[in-house]
């Protein structure tokens, strides 16, 4: 099926010779809904290299799903162009559908088919068999294989997630699109899922994955932080952290909520947010020197302050405030 592209439009070939390192490329993508009253994404441009694990990080309503649907040829953009694996998402949609795997955020397999039947169905649709590409899914499939006669509708969240990933992989796609695969999944299963992604990446598959969990950003090669249809920042996690513009401090005391209120009321505070058991704050030039004395005068006990390296979540908050 993939052979079809040989006699296809020249534009795709030109593109792939010029940008042979790129797996996904978006140029000025805009999409509105509801007769242009709701803008989902505005003027989005970025690219993903071949073999890269790229994360779209942002909250609900940021436009992540819209981008996935445009790239998987399920939705037409109002403006802009996009290429996947050297194919144009509008002209070459059939080729794209053959060479990508897509795991939507909403469970979309057949509830009344069993695990094995679902997998067989997707293999057949793509003209392949489970056996032919078993190597690719083996690690994941063995975990659900004991239940292969159970209907998909009767599976738990974690098992559905693994089955959906198997179905998205069964035709050995070049590019894998995963829309919020870990939403609502507990911390242990999330960790395991990312280990599976690492193994898939090692096999050369390009992966575009979205998540609302900022801590997962560090597991990507590069990330785009996205909010309200716009990209706030795009780079490697390390570079985004490096570009945090100020010194960040962590403050801790026995009563976190009181401390939070007092730090926010301190005149020299630039920003302050709760972060787990401590607060993360930035201060106006030099104001950090006086803050502990101020907090003690307000009755906070055991106040500790130290400089820290920002996390991706700190960076995201900073970018939201700008």
């Amino acid at each position, binding site marked *: 099926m993939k052979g079809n592209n040989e006699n296809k439009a020249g534009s795709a070939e030109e593109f792939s010779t010029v940008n042979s390192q790129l797996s996904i490329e978006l140029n000025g993508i805009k999409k509105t809904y509801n007769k242009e009253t709701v803008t989902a994404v505005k003027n989005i441009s970025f690219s993903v290299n071949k073999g890269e694990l790229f994360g779209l990080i942002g909250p609900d309503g940021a436009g992540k799903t819209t981008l996935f649907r445009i790239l998987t040829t399920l939705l037409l953009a109002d403006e802009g162009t996009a290429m996947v694996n050297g194919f144009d998402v509008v002209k070459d949609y059939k080729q794209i559908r053959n060479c990508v795997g897509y795991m939507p955020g909403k469970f979309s397999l057949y509830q009344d088919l069993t695990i094995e039947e679902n997998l067989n169905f997707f293999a057949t649709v793509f003209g392949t068999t489970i056996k032919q590409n078993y190597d690719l899914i083996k690690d994941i499939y063995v975990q659900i294989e004991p239940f292969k006669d159970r209907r998909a509708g009767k599976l738990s969240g*974690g098992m559905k997630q693994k089955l959906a990933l198997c179905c998205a992989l069964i035709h050995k796609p070049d590019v894998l699109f995963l829309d919020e695969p870990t939403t*609502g999944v*507990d911390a*242990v299963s999330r960790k*395991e899922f990312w280990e599976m992604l690492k193994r898939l990446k090692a096999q050369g598959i390009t992966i575009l994955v979205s998540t609302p969990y900022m801590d997962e950003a560090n597991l990507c090669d590069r990330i785009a932080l996205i909010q309200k249809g716009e990209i706030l920042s795009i780079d490697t996690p390390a570079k985004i952290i490096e570009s945090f513009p100020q010194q960040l401090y962590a403050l801790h005391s026995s009563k976190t*909520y009181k401390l939070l209120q007092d730090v926010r009321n301190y005149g020299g505070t630039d920003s302050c947010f*709760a972060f787990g*058991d401590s607060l993360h704050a930035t201060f106006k030039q030099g104001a950090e020197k006086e803050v502990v004395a101020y907090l003690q005068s307000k009755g906070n006990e055991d106040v500790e302050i130290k400089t820290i390296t920002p996390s991706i979540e700190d960076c995201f908050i900073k970018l939201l405030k700008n």
Partner: protein
Amino acid sequence: MQAVITTDKLTKRFGDFVACNELSFEVGKGEIFGFLGANGAGKTTAMRMLCGLLKPSSGKASIAGFDVYTQTEKIKRSIGYMSQKFSLYDDLTVAENIRFYGGIYGMNTKEIKAKTIELLDELQLQNEAKTLVSDLPLGWKQKLSFSVSIVHNPEIVFLDEPTGGVDPVTRRQFWDLIYHAADKGVTIFVTTHYMDEAEYCNRVSIMVDGVIAALDSPANLKKQFNSESMEEVFYQLARKATRSDN
């Protein structure tokens, strides 16, 4: 500590499967109590029993002084509930939603009117009273949903993964609301997958395979499990789960 939730060997069986096995704990008035566990650990079953929606198989539990076997209607009047899937009506306005829930909980017109003004004020939604809920940004919906869940001044509010999907700033604003409510004496019973939010709780319980595997303040749990963060504590406990839904 004045206990508003007390359970003693609370158990729920479905056939041979023990979803919750002898849960015994107390939650104090005005406490923020984090209820954590892996998917499939039994959290939802436990919550349903505590809300008077599911009859236990054995054991005892009292919620706001009412018995989970015999006084479930009284329990429902004394608690609020909010989940990530908001129970707001999209095609009603902000004010209409407040009026609707006030009515459901048996408040009279005068009380509802006063409460509406108070809530809109607190949420700074005065200008949005006549806006359809469907037109509100997600973060505002979430805050409104929380306020509506405590419209009848319940003693306890159950929050089931309330902060899924919102941006980090909105998530923290939501926790400000939680702290504010707890300050006023409302007991908060909350589940979350964000481990940093576990740190915001006064005490945290972690369920594994139907039992409470650990219960203490975040600081004590970290000490007990020799961990830097609640994430590590959770990981140590939950990865041993045999029945998690994987």
